């Protein structure tokens, strides 16, 4: 008969035990510090390289040596030395850099929110756009614009707050659905999204139609998802929200691991599921609301990126969440570079590019990888 291995008492870690833990760690069966550092190091490096490439491309390419010099000068607070570098400097620092930063922040946030929603709803297709959280946030921001929140001196922080409120409204409905079913099965998830999207779009269209023509045109462009040249002050407003939201989200990575096992299992492992879920839902609404109020509805990043990252790096949220954030940011930066250079000087809304990349992937998952959707 098989024997039980010797009992290990907590607090009695010996040398004999440590080789066992090394054995588990060395084969990549569990996430270790070194694997975490390696993966994120490589992704971080890629992000920096890609952002330089994105700075290079534009209506007029700027040489990489020039980019590095301007960036170095900006960091060390030196003024430009000659005429040509002055023009390049303005283009880089006032046009391309803020836009690339915005793209990175938005992509980063949407991918992180996607990871959180997928674990919370136990559904690998969950995504703020598909679920209708983005359109809820868009409605909130549109209402804000209608009542003039965009023109107050608090504009840069007031619109994200409106978006937060709208996103929260959508998530309350989703939360009720999930609470009724225990998890959100794929069909009711999609159905919830379709219904919420329909209602919110109708209301947004209504608001658009009663605005003056020039403001309504701006709103339409924003709704399609755009990263058009933000000012640094609007970036700061966004960053305040995102830093709070994402830091809190990142503090919940281990809880997300446990929640991904299912609600009852999570409770038997000591997670106060109701509290954790409420907390996480509010955070996802906060981040989505802030992002949407600035960049409009950019879809599918929250679904495609975590899915791809999970395939390569595994399901542990301690790696999945930061890695998805980096990949999402890099992906949106690149997509936006394509959007502004493909038929330059005309810009394509970046939401179109991400939807064209993500939509087919979504169909592929639904048609051929049903096994992944449970």
């Amino acid at each position: 008969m098989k024997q039980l291995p010797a009992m290990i008492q907590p607090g009695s870690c010996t040398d004999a035990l440590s080789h066992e833990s090394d054995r588990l760690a060395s084969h990549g069966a569990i996430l270790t510090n070194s694997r975490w550092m390696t993966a994120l190091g490589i992704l971080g490096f890629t992000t920096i390289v890609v952002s330089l490439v994105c700075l290079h491309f534009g209506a007029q390419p700027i040489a990489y040596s020039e980019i590095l010099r301007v960036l170095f000068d900006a960091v060390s607070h030196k003024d430009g030395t000659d005429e040509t570098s002055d023009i390049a400097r303005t283009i880089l620092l006032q046009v391309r850099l803020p836009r690339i930063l915005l793209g990175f922040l938005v992509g980063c946030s949407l991918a992180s929110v996607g990871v959180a929603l997928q674990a919370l709803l136990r559904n690998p297709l969950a995504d703020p756009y598909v679920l209708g959280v983005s359109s809820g946030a868009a409605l909130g921001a549109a209402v804000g614009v209608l009542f003039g929140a965009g023109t107050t001196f608090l504009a840069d922080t007031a619109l994200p707050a409106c978006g937060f409120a709208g996103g929260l409204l959508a998530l309350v409905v989703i939360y009720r659905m999930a609470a009724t079913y225990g998890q959100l099965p794929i069909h009711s998830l999609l159905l919830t999204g379709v219904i919420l999207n329909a209602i919110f779009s109708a209301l947004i269209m209504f608001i658009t139609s009663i605005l003056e023509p020039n403001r309504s045109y701006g709103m339409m462009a924003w709704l399609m998802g755009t990263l058009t040249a933000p000012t640094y002050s609007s970036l700061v407003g966004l960053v305040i929200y995102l830093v709070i939201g994402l830091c809190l989200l990142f503090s919940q990575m281990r809880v997300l691991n446990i929640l991904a096992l299912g609600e009852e299992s999570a409770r038997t492992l000591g997670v106060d599921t109701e509290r954790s879920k409420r907390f996480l839902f509010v955070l996802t609404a906060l981040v989505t609301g802030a992002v949407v109020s600035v960049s409009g509805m950019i879809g599918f990043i929250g679904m495609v990126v975590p899915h791809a990252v999970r395939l390569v790096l595994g399901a542990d949220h301690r790696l999945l969440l930061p890695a998805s954030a980096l990949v999402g940011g890099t992906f949106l930066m690149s997509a936006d570079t394509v959007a502004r250079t493909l038929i330059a000087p005309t810009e394509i809304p970046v939401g179109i590019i991400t939807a064209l990349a993500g939509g087919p992937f979504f169909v592929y998952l639904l048609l051929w990888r049903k096994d992944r959707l449970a």
Partner: protein
Amino acid sequence: MSGKSQSRTAETMSREPMCALTGRHAYDVQSVQFRYQSNESHAASWILDNLSFHVQECEVLGIVGPNGSGKTSLLKVLARLMIPQQGRIDLFGRDVASMRQREIARIVGVVQQDTQQLFPFTVAETVLMGRFPHRPRDRWAGGFGWESREDVAIAEQAMMTMDIVHLTHRVVTGLSGGERQRTVIARALAQTPKVLLLDEPTAFLDLEHQIEISSVLRRLRDERGLTVVLVSHDLNLVSQYCDRILLLDHGRVVRLGPPKEVIEPEVLEFVYRCRVLVDPHPGSGLPRVTLPGRPVSSKT
């Protein structure tokens, strides 16, 4: 038994005996009434109806009963996954209603019936999650918090106990039902619990692993003083491996006692409304339940 296992037994004996029936109660269940919220309008539909019993420390208690008798609900109430409307449940003398979920998780491991997984965690990662309730609370900073070597060693030991070391690197979504079941039991063992609650632990398992898990549970009781409460449909398994059996019907205790007192033909016929044969097991002498079977024509 092999010589190696005998020396192990000797070693176990020489250690402080883990399991002595202390007379302490792991669980004290006092007049518990439970029903699901949506049924509140129907006065008669208590799932658990004025239930009182205790679980002794260091025993294997089997809960049996027909479908819908409240077995799974009882297990969930014990795990505080559901809160009874009336009555009180004490866990080692403390009212579970006053305990935090995390405190309970350090004492009670739960293996649920549905072990379906959605996300591709590896087996090792899944088992290691059993250490979660023992990790320091890391509300703000420690989203990363790596497991200590001790945690990993405990998880590895749980995997050895459940014979899933060879699956370490496999992804849980790709396991068979039995492998998944053993993974989840290993995760519960990694919690280093004092009490293990299992809902149909052998449902997905083949004969070999049914026997193996049942005897592992008994050995855990013997060597580590684990209290085991398991819900099962398999009367024979429960009769062979449990110290006491709790027979439930309509949320009430019909019988509670050693197998010989509970597995009796009249009692089973009354509860299950069908005739069965009960005779002593040729090996253990414990009661054995046989279905009456169909009459076979003597010509063939």
